[in-house]
């Protein structure tokens, strides 16, 4: 929180971001509450519906399967409700 932020004179105009992909630095996983999604890899059929539905792109494809990138997962649980074989569950960590 004590990070020194630039003055108005030195910021690019209009809030333009000149460097692409800067949102990667913003770890929205901090927003997640006590519940975290967990994938049961044995039940998972690799249908990729969770990967499609995740509004934050926090589900990543690894090989032919998926994993959850907790740096960006806000814990909304949409993957849990969309998984047709109930391979994802919300668990209190």
């Amino acid at each position: 929180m004590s990070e020194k932020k630039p003055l108005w004179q030195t910021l690019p105009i209009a809030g333009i971001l000149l460097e692409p992909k800067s949102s990667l630095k913003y770890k929205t996983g901090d927003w997640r509450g006590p519940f975290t999604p967990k994938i049961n890899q044995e039940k998972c059929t690799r249908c990729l519906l969770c990967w499609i539905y995740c509004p934050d792109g926090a589900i990543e494809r690894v090989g032919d399967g998926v994993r959850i990138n907790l740096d960006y997962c806000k814990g909304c649980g949409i993957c849990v409700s969309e998984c047709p074989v109930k391979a994802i569950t919300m668990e209190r960590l």
Partner: protein
Amino acid sequence: MAKVIGLTGDEAVAYAIKQCNVDVVAAYPITPQTVIVEAFSEYVFNGEVDTEFVCVESEHSAMSACVGASLTGARVFTATASQGLALMHEILYIASSLRCPIVMGVVNRALSAPINIHGDHSDMMGSRDCGWIQIYAENVQEAYDWTIQAFKIAEDKEVLLPVTVNLDGFILSHSIEGIKVLEDEDVASFLPPREPVYTIDPNNPITVGALALPNYYFEFKVQQDHALRNSFKAMGKVFSEYEELSGRKYDVLHTYGMEDAEIALICLGSTAGTARYVAKRLREKGVKVGVLKPWVYRPFPEKEIVEAVKEVKALAVMDRACSFGAPYAPLGSDIASILYKSGLDIPVVNYVYGLGGRDVSPLDLEAVVNEILEVAKTGEIKEHLKFLGVR
């Protein structure tokens, strides 16, 4: 020799746009602005310009398309009035905060209800805090001249802000005046193609319109305010260059008779002409009346107005818009504020006049002058805010 042609206010704006090498026009028709885009669409149809003309389904879409086009580096124009400007309101703020140098003709018209198509400044005053440079033309010649200068001011790298050129609905938009127009090549040399600072370019990706939370948003607003206030500097350069080209000298404030004025009238737009006519006649009888016309309303020419009025004994501020429930109407508020800031104790009477296009005659303004002379003599203000000519 300057070419003189007869054009209405709307046609003059369209003629100026034809000469300004505009890349994109996205507009939606609304009385009394319709003729601008109608006349311009004929230029497009006839192949006299290579402008991309976008017919949109609303003013909200018109301004949105303009913002998108401007971000690609295009020179962009649109025009609207009244309800149309009100519908654009949301996007006006986005245009100025994304620093899009769009030029827009606003043909001032009353806001509903009751529905009314005639001229007053309620539309622009309703959006006066939108962060645009706001210019008011007095006559058709000025509407033409300001439109050309507006692009140069807007696109200056120190400014990068959109500009509205306001002209009074019907009084200017539909009145034919003989105006001096520039040669196409002179406008082209005055206004070379836009050189954008940042553009949307797939080979050089940038992010525009990202989120800024409480820890960043405020800084961008201060940047914007600074750019608007600072735009006077660019205007000075543009005025000199335009004078050289056209022989017509513009400024942020026009004054008449202020060297020895005891009282003065301040007004925007076409009423300034009537006010000067009245002042001239009264001055022949020895009444020392001056007239101030802020050509540029935002940023507000504080320094120039204070300098011009510091010796007067009373002021009439004429507003063609009502600020419901406020201490003064918009221009009245601004004048009262700058007098307070500069420590000038000059009595002010704020007149709201001409709403819904009600005519203001020389006799009406003469009555105002007489009231202000009385205020100057007695130092007493009976009513701070008056509604001129209302039954």
